[in-house]
């Protein structure tokens, strides 16, 4: 079954009489428990697709269906139980004056879920942080620990779908490895569906089963993991991204 179906999606921003077409006629479909990657340069519209799913971008055409159902114009509380997002920069995405405990407990309070204490402790343990971290503020954590908290927050409502917007690009290589391993483990344990954005082909290749290469708001080419590893891309742009990828040297 397709968990995420996007057909002919267009997003247009309007400012000062200008029109910026961030996404133009992109279609994709992600099956249940699949991990799907979006790659491209900045400005290619990959993050805008994630934001459009969450209702945070002005959709001007096309449809988005989650679990077979069209999304309501305003995303409701039920939506956040199905879909959650992890943002790129853990320094900006956690409230600086809320303790970790408050950050993690807030979605529970909004949705009237009880047993807050036990759930917060379990959420922290699940992402490999000691329970005592509840009482800390974001500035008392390292970048990798913050991103773990951001992942724990996204999982508080037990969603089936995680939208990951460059979840490791702000982290050191060694910390990136730990966070990628954590995401992989959580996906296997909970049967999550991932839609992941990254500019790093090697990261996307490690995490995803299928990949969509984007440029200037349009879909350029869809690749299976095997096609990417075997360098069997059809378009010149996908090949240039592949060739520019830093790990080619050590290939």
């Amino acid at each position, binding site marked *: 079954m397709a968990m995420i179906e996007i057909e002919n999606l267009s997003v247009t921003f309007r400012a000062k009489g200008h029109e910026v077409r961030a996404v133009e006629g992109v279609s994709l479909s992600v099956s249940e428990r699949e991990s799907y990657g979006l790659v491209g*340069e*900045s*400005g290619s519209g990959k993050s805008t697709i994630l934001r459009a799913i969450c209702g945070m971008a002005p959709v001007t055409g096309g449809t988005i269906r989650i679990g077979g159902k069209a999304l309501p114009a305003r995303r409701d509380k039920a939506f956040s139980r199905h879909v959650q997002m992890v943002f790129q920069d853990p320094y900006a995405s956690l409230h600086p004056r809320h303790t970790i405990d408050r950050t993690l407990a807030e979605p529970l309070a909004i949705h009237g879920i009880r047993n807050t204490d036990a759930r917060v402790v379990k959420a922290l343990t699940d992402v490999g942080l000691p329970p005592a971290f509840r009482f800390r503020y974001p500035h008392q954590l*390292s*970048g990798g620990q913050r991103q773990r908290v951001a992942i724990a927050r996204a999982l508080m409502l037990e969603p089936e779908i995680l939208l990951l917007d460059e979840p490791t690009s702000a982290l*050191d*290589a*060694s*910390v*990136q*490895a*730990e966070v*990628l*391993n954590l995401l*992989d*483990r959580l996906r296997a344990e909970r049967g999550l569906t991932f839609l992941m954005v990254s*500019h*790093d*082909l*090697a*990261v996307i*290749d*490690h*995490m995803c089963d299928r990949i969509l290469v984007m440029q200037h708001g349009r879909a350029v080419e869809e690749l299976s993991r095997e096609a*990417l*590893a*075997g360098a069997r891309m059809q378009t010149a742009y996908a090949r*240039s*991204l*592949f060739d*520019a*990828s*830093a*790990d*080619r*040297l*050590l*290939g």
Partner: protein
Amino acid sequence: MTALLDVQNLRVTFDTETGPVHAVRGVSFSLGRERLGIVGESGSGKTMTGRSVLRLIRPPGRIEADRMLFDGQDLMAAGEREMRALRGKRIGMVMQDPKYSLNPVMNVGEQLTEGLRRRDRIGRAEARDKAIAALEAVQIRSPERVMTAFPHELSGGMGQRVMIAMMLIPEPDLLIADEPTSALDVTVQAEVLSILDRLVRDRGMGLIFISHDLRLVSRFCDRVLVMFKGKIVEEVAAKNLLQAKHPYTQGLLNCLPRIGGPREPLPSLDRSGDWAKETA
């Protein structure tokens, strides 16, 4: 060939309420007119090493070194006035993030010509021509338009190129580039690196390239210093990086995902070896 930069036993210490924090603990290296990479994780002291060369560390930070010579001049003994004469003019530095390193309320043209007009006393028209030439040198297609733009109107890649252009106008002998490409897309990254590469070859400039990306550094530099907790743990010729002996260097290499690599969990960096304890 005499070394352009010679650093012996460099130490950077921050005195804090809870005691001294040693950011750099005895780093020695020398640099000719070549590309030297410094690699390490956050907090390994690589940025502090780069900033020390320009003596850009504010109190409570302290810089100590047995020797720090740039082109024969003793940087440790130089006064503020002498350092100011070196900074920018003979030793340039490109910072990591154009968002924070450019002046947000000054347009690009004013920022590029400020040094020329104030320091070199060059007239407005000539300074403008030099600035436009520098923007062209870093492959900016419409330099006239960029000259009138403010930093927030530029993309990350453009901002980074503006900073490189700014550093290149005085034609320094040594350029310290601190993560100059980590905010950029891979294709733009490749362009910026080739610009730097050309400048090293054409102008015979020395380059210190600081980065956390071991693969990138090895592709681009001649020699690589690997830092951990303020010390150099290994020095390797970039082309022999895959034969690196030190467990930390190997750990840094292995924890990166590879296209077509296996699907198992990535090896995490093991910091429990004896080599890690001795620096603790």
